[in-house]
């Protein structure tokens, strides 16, 4: 077991973690602010990947087609997120937890079938532009150059979200809403509009994640099912509503996966759930969360 192999495994874990981060950050944001656990988050992520594919087919003649498609997919998903929030989520703000969970779970089933109706059952593959087609070499070890892009997008979104939450007025309102909705509302800020904004932002990032995921490999029906539970694990490990926690949690889960593939292939997914269960038992609010809302 030499260091170069470990390094390449580390980088692949990091890129896997970054995809998870892009999904989980929206999930965590929506739960932190709206207190709604969105089961359908990864389903919308997959819709983003399929939209990216469709845009790419339309723009196939252009060299920049794939990059534009990723952005268009994110924007399309933001629009879809807005419709879902206004039509469905808004109606269950003050319902009990199980009903909210069921609503988003029902969305998983509906979205899954709508994908099947729209894009059919065959796998979709995006041919990458030359820039990210081949491998790059780190100390003589080949590494998928597209993964570098994935890692960069992940960190860019992390920094962007951090800047939004810490430095802008709306970010401050969102953070305040995590602590006390009543107080924010009492200051005359329309809570439903904040909720809609947060939901749209979360789904936008999910769409971006889908777009970024699309060229990684083939886009397959049912990809969302395994990912959504792993995204829950990330959010649990990091702590609900904590951006830093989500980032650390994603890297932990990504690396656990990458390294157990190396040492104990059958145990990769089992190990993720063991770690999640241990964190939930010892620190239910996660590594970086606050016990306030536990």
């Amino acid at each position, binding site marked *: 077991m030499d260091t170069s192999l470990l390094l390449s495994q580390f980088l692949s874990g990091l890129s896997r973690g970054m995809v998870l981060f892009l999904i989980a950050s929206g999930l965590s944001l929506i739960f932190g602010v709206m207190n709604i*656990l969105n089961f359908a988050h990864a389903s919308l992520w997959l819709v983003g990947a399929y939209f990216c594919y469709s845009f790419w087919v339309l723009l196939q003649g252009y060299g920049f087609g794939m990059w534009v498609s990723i952005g268009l997919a994110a924007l399309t998903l933001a629009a879809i997120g807005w419709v879902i929030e206004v039509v*469905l989520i808004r*109606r*269950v703000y003050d*319902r009990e*937890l*199980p*009903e909210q*969970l*069921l*609503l988003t*779970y*029902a*969305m*998983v*089933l*509906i979205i*899954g*079938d*709508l994908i*099947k*109706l729209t894009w059919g059952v065959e796998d979709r593959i995006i041919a990458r532009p030359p820039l990210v087609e081949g491998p790059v070499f780190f100390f003589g070890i080949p590494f998928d150059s597209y993964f570098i892009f994935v890692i960069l997008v992940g960190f860019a979104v992390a920094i962007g979200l951090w800047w939004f939450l810490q430095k802008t007025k709306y970010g401050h309102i969102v953070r305040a809403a995590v602590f006390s909705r009543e107080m924010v509302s009492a200051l005359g800020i329309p809570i439903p509009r904040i909720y809609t904004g947060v939901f749209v932002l979360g789904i936008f990032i999910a769409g971006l994640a889908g777009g970024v995921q699309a060229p990684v490999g083939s886009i397959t029906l049912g990809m969302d*099912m395994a990912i959504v*539970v792993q995204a*829950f*694990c990330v959010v*649990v490990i990091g702590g609900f509503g904590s951006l830093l926690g989500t980032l650390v949690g994603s890297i932990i889960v990504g690396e656990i996966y990458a390294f157990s593939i190396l040492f104990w292939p*059958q*145990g990769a*997914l*089992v190990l993720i*759930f*063991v770690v*999640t*269960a241990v964190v*939930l*038992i010892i620190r*239910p609010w996660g590594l970086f969360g606050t016990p306030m809302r*536990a």
Partner: protein
Amino acid sequence: MKRYWWLGLVFIVALILPFVIGEFWVHVAVEILILGLFAVSFNMIFGYMGQLSFGHAAYYGVGAYATGLLMVKASVPLPICLPASMIAAGICALIFGYFCVRLTGIYFAILTLAFGQLMYYIIFQWYSFTGGDDGLQGIIPPDFLFSATAYYYFTLFVVAAALIVIWYISESPFGYTMRTIRENPDRTRFIGINVKRYMLINFVIAGMFAGLAGGLWGPFNRSIAPDLCNWHQSGTPVFMTVIGGPLGFFGPMVGSVIYTFLMAFVTGFTEYWPLTIGLVIIFVVLFMPGGVLGFFEERVKIIRARALEVGAGESSEKENS
């Protein structure tokens, strides 16, 4: 007991059912019974204890695998396999539940989900023992239960017996303690009840009956697969309970009838069953928050209230004249 005369009626209808309907619908009826028991056991945690388990399929799957493995690998007769399924699922629920009952609300839901997925991946990956994603084939019930009708009667009696036991548990002091914990765990602790231990016992009992349901499933379906443990499967009893109504004892059973019947009907002419049930669930969540039973109870109350009003109105008119 006079209030429950209709139960006897339902049982008599269930007894003569196979003479009236075709073999396909007998299969559907077996499915209704097994999944109904699964949903009722889930509702011991959800309706009576007030916690949402999103990993209840783990115990259903363990029960199914206990019976499946014993029958296929050791040729143990089915009547011995079923108690073994309950014990295996109970042990599993004891280990997982020990940690789960320490949490409540969303954390309880996620921890049960995590344990459910853990069980799923163990069964999925442990190829040499469980057959991995190939599942287990050739779980053939004994000769006297081979026909659909015979297996239907066998399931009917097992499920009916299980429901009676669960009914007695839910109406016992223990069952009412669970309701107290649901309403206010702090006050329950103040009167000297070990809340966590009670919750754990309830969790284990619920897991055992889920295991029994799972044990019945294998010989009925002739094969089992790791998907029985997956989180979609955990969603099924949640759907049934919400459709039927979580606050009545028979709500999950009513939900199972509606869900399974609808599934058999819809899958007859379209593959888009998830889309259909998804729309049904959204409709129920948005417009019938108490489930179907809750909805009808509400209607009955309104009709009764109207009848009373009319009666009161008439009598006051008489007084006036």
